[in-house]
């Protein structure tokens, strides 16, 4: 695949992914709360409704950072998706260190969510921003350990090699603790459910409490884009990405991405959120040792 078609595929994948993610989210929400069905066009209706309203700002906000936080979050999600191989040897960003690039994306997400909460100069948004940093930083450690454990058998930090190394056996079997830990990171990156410390209900919407109109639409789109990007990365790392019989690789990737998206959304509606101090302790005292064990086991398996 040459560059231009690859980029087009990427954008199409992302756009359709965002649309499906929005519908999935509504479906899960309604199923659990016991309400009726969802129209497949509902994401467009919601977007139009947002865009029909005025975009407000606050007193003396940091306008530039407000704008850059929303645009940047979307960009980071897209860059994350760009390192995912759509087929053998075809990733839009094909470099030897794509796992590190994804790590950089994760850390930039923390920065951008913080900026989004900082820029409106509003108390509730500010609390949300600071709280997110407390969880967003340490949760990255888990994902790094898990990704490194996935890189061991591939002998490479290239996501293309990691997918190729799963030809015989998917990483989810080689490294059973990996995917659950990685999904927690996904919840945190997409500001969802138990890890939604930025935009949560106890802050009336947290960092997005002041977002109206186009800003709100942009932020929601970016969150869903991040969900797509994350799910595609997770599908490539643990579920063999594009590998699969008969169907073309990209279809397999799409199916696996969809499954993981559904899992993340389901978890986000079904798991309770704990106060942030408790979560901080949980990550360092309980989840981090589990990540150590995961790495050790993966190392032993790779050597065996």
């Amino acid at each position: 695949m040459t560059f231009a078609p690859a980029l087009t595929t990427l954008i199409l994948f992302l756009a359709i992914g965002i649309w499906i993610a929005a519908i999935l989210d509504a479906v899960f929400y309604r199923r659990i709360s016991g309400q009726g069905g969802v129209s497949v066009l509902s994401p467009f209706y919601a977007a139009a409704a947002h865009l029909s309203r005025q975009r407000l700002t606050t007193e003396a906000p940091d306008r530039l950072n407000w704008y850059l936080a929303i645009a940047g979050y979307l960009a980071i999600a897209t860059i994350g998706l760009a390192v995912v191989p759509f087929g053998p040897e075809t990733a839009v960003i094909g470099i030897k260190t794509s796992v590190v690039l994804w790590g950089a994306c994760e850390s930039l997400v923390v920065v951008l969510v913080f900026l989004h909460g900082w820029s409106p100069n509003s108390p509730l948004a500010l609390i949300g921003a600071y709280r997110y940093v407390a969880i967003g930083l340490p949760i990255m450690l888990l994902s790094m350990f898990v990704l490194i454990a996935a890189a061991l058998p591939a002998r490479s930090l290239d996501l293309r090699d990691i997918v190729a190394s799963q030809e015989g056996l998917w990483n989810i079997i080689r490294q059973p603790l990996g995917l659950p830990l990685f999904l927690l990171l996904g919840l945190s990156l997409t500001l969802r459910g138990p890890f939604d410390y930025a935009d949560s209900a106890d802050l009336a919407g947290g960092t997005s409490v002041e977002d109206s109109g186009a800003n709100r639409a942009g932020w929601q789109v970016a969150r869903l884009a991040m969900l797509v990007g994350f799910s595609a990365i997770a599908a490539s790392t643990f579920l063999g990405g594009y590998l699969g019989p008969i169907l073309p690789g990209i279809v397999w990737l799409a199916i696996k991405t969809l499954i993981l998206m559904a899992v993340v959304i389901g978890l986000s509606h079904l798991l309770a959120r704990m106060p942030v101090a408790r979560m901080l302790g949980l990550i360092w005292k309980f989840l981090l040792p589990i990540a150590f064990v995961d790495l050790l086991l993966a190392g032993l398996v790779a050597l065996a």
Partner: protein
Amino acid sequence: MTTLITIFLVLGLSVLFTAGLRTASGTDLADHITNPQQRPVLGGSDPKMHAWQRFHVRYYTMTLVFVAFEMEMMFMYPWAVVFVEEGPKALAEMGMFLTILSVGILYGWREGIFRWE
């Protein structure tokens, strides 16, 4: 090089998309935001002061430990690439490295840095 071009392209497209959203949302009063509209949300109350402040972060010691601990990633990435060919030696060396760093975390735990100070 392609990496950089792609990243720049994606950045540019995202900025354009966000700008597009802003232009697409046009109401008659879009550009005029009045003072009462700008008041930060406090459920109907009037804030007395700016929210921007010397914000009392409650987990600052954790972030310092985190920055030091995270440096280990820089060593772990190259280690992961050669792990299989170096074999048990690699496992032992990284095990030692991580054990050393874990002592720091255990010390921090003992001092209570993972609480809300």
